[in-house]
């Protein structure tokens, strides 16, 4: 049987042949976000995982602060920080196998880095030397997507294609609370469910879409409740609890891998910085609100657990910090070098082969640059603009 024929074969029948519609309970999220840290369940978590998550969270936070610092020095055009959301970013990266794919949104540079991308290459978009600084196929990380929610159907299509080819590949796609309002969110989730594609959607509900709070974005009981309308399970998780996010995503990935279809996960978290360095969050939220969330910091939560269980001594902390500092120093240093740019790139990748028109335009630019540089200029050709 082919992949597509496996689908439930609904045929319209009149009553009395009607069957009661499936009980939606298995699709509904819990009333409160799932948490592990600070609960008994934490005790059963593999210490290695805790340590790995911790190291990545610290590194991630450092990455965020370093990148923000680089915007102040004019070395980055813009940086949408994920400070406060590192648990989601890191768990999303760690939960995947090498062969799986990650579909980040514009805020998720960190997830890409945690997945193994070069920290500088990952910043290419935001530095402004090119749109994407890495080969997506190398680490199976799609380009950071700026148009919100548009990458979700890509994730569905890729996961579906992998399944059609018989490959054991799962796609994990990230989107914000604001992004859930877009039509592409809806269409992606619907295709995923109809096709039973091996894809997991992680909504990082950080309370805001730039200045717009969640209450103006949705009237739903939770974003995870949207799953019901697609016939896929919805899960609600504490987005600052790295272990809980890792667990919930892990279950969803496993389910997708086993042919069980897509899952929608909502992680409740908070954006601790302004939308980007260019934003002024004083205009739309109170300091007190931000402060209240500081008590629920993802790194502190995990540190408590590790310390409490005696899994983290001073040396370990120091090692983790040093690693993070080394990464930051390397990032700083390499970002302080001007990237080497080739204007010819403008024309080289529009098509597999430049059109005659692009070749003309490239020649025009080359002549201009030569003239600027004082090199002998070719005669301008004909009437080409």
């Amino acid at each position, binding site marked *: 049987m*082919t*992949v*597509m*024929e496996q689908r439930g074969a609904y045929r319209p029948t009149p009553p009395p042949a009607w069957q009661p519609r499936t009980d939606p309970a298995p699709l509904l999220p819990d009333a409160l976000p799932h948490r592990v840290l600070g609960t008994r369940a934490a005790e059963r978590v593999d210490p290695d995982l805790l340590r790995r998550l911790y190291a990545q969270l610290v590194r991630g936070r450092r990455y965020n602060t370093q990148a923000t610092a680089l915007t102040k020095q004019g070395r980055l055009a813009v940086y949408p920080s994920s400070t406060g959301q590192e648990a989601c970013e890191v768990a999303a990266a760690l939960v995947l196998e090498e062969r799986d794919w990650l579909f980040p949104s514009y805020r998720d540079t960190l997830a890409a880095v945690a997945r193994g991308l070069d920290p500088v290459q990952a910043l290419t978009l935001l530095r402004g030397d*090119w*749109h*994407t600084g*890495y*080969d*997506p*196929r190398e680490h199976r990380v*799609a*380009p950071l997507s700026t*148009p919100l929610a*548009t990458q*979700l*159907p*890509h*994730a*569905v*299509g*890729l*996961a*579906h*294609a*992998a399944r*059609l*080819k018989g490959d054991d590949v799962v*796609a994990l796609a990230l989107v914000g609370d604001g992004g859930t309002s877009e*039509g*592409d969110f*809806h*269409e*992606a989730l*619907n*295709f995923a469910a*109809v096709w039973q594609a091996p894809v997991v959607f992680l909504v990082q509900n950080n309370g805001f879409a730039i200045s717009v709070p969640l209450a103006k974005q949705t009237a739903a009981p939770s974003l995870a409740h949207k799953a019901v309308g697609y016939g896929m399970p919805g899960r609600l998780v504490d987005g600052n609890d790295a272990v809980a996010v890792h667990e919930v995503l892990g279950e969803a990935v496993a389910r997708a891998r086993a042919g069980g279809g897509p899952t929608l996960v909502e992680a409740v978290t908070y954006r601790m910085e302004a939308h980007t360095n260019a934003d002024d969050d004083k205009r739309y939220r109170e300091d007190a609100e931000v402060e209240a969330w500081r008590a629920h910091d993802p790194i502190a939560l995990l540190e408590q657990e590790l310390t409490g269980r005696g899994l983290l001594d001073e040396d370990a902390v120091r090692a983790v910090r040093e690693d993070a500092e080394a990464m930051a120093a390397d990032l700083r240093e390499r970002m302080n070098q001007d990237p080497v740019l080739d204007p010819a*790139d403008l024309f*080289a*990748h*529009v*098509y*597999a082969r430049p*059109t*005659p*028109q692009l070749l003309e335009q490239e020649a025009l630019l080359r002549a201009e640059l030569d003239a600027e540089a004082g090199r002998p200029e070719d005669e301008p050709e*004909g*009437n*080409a*603009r």
Partner: protein
Amino acid sequence: MTTVAVKPATMAQALGRALRDAMADDPAVHVMGEDVGTLGGVFRVTDGLAKEFGEDRVTDTPLAEAGILGTAVGMAMYGLRPVVEMQFDAFAYPAFEQLLSHVAKMRNRTRGAMPLPLTVRVPYGGGIGGVEHHSDSSEAYYIATPGLHVVTPATVSDAYGLLRAAIASDDPVVFLEPKRLYWSKDAWNPEEPQAVEPIGRAVVRRTGRSATLITYGPSVPVCLEAAEAARAEGWDLEVVDLRSLVPFDDETVAASVRRTGRAVVVHESGGFGGPGGEIAARVTERCFHHLEAPVLRVAGFDIPYPPPMLERHHLPGVDRILDAVARLQWEAQSR
């Protein structure tokens, strides 16, 4: 050339055959869209494909054009070659963000690392008595979007040859199918070996000395008819079928206009901001001193596509083309 008895086939059938052959040649080719499977498409272009290749490769999607194109992008990212059908021209609009922001840009965005071999088939244009939203000529939107190839056949054999080329292309191609030519037939013979027609080459469909009609898609047969009718007026018109709007074959077009010294661009799409302006401007840039008169345009009016009972007034017809030819300043002022 044809020696065996020709079994005429329609353009719709030739397109279907191109899809079939492409799918048979390359397992990466997938067909998807609304009603393309079981039904075989509302124009029956995909008739029989689902039966032959199965639902996994010929897929009836949910009714959501952005979703169709967006998932096709993902499939192409994984190495497939999706061929997407948009049911009618205006129903491609919901997919424009995917088309403009991703399909057209993915290769460039990734410095060539992530090409998108993806074909978007769009039945377009009027003349079939369709109600609102079923007769748009939307090529202006596509040609203004760098990263897309834009192709449109006017003959049955080009329909086959260009669609094969589109599917084989490593770049996204918007493949515009002139709806009212779906049922047209010509000498194309499905029994003969088939040729792929490379994208980017215009063709002179009729040679002539007096003036050049530059056109494409549904207006090609109209221009050929006009050229025949023009003989009575003493004009010997050349007709150039562009076939590919992007890339544009400047060479063939300019060579023709340099020979004839006069040109009229003909298309159904609205005039203002339509392809005709680009074409007239390029031709003038290249042939200015060969021109006896400004390049004129015969296009659809600058109005929303009219209802069926009024569409004949809107569509460029033989008379309107000849009227334009008549305005090409034959009593040449000395220049």
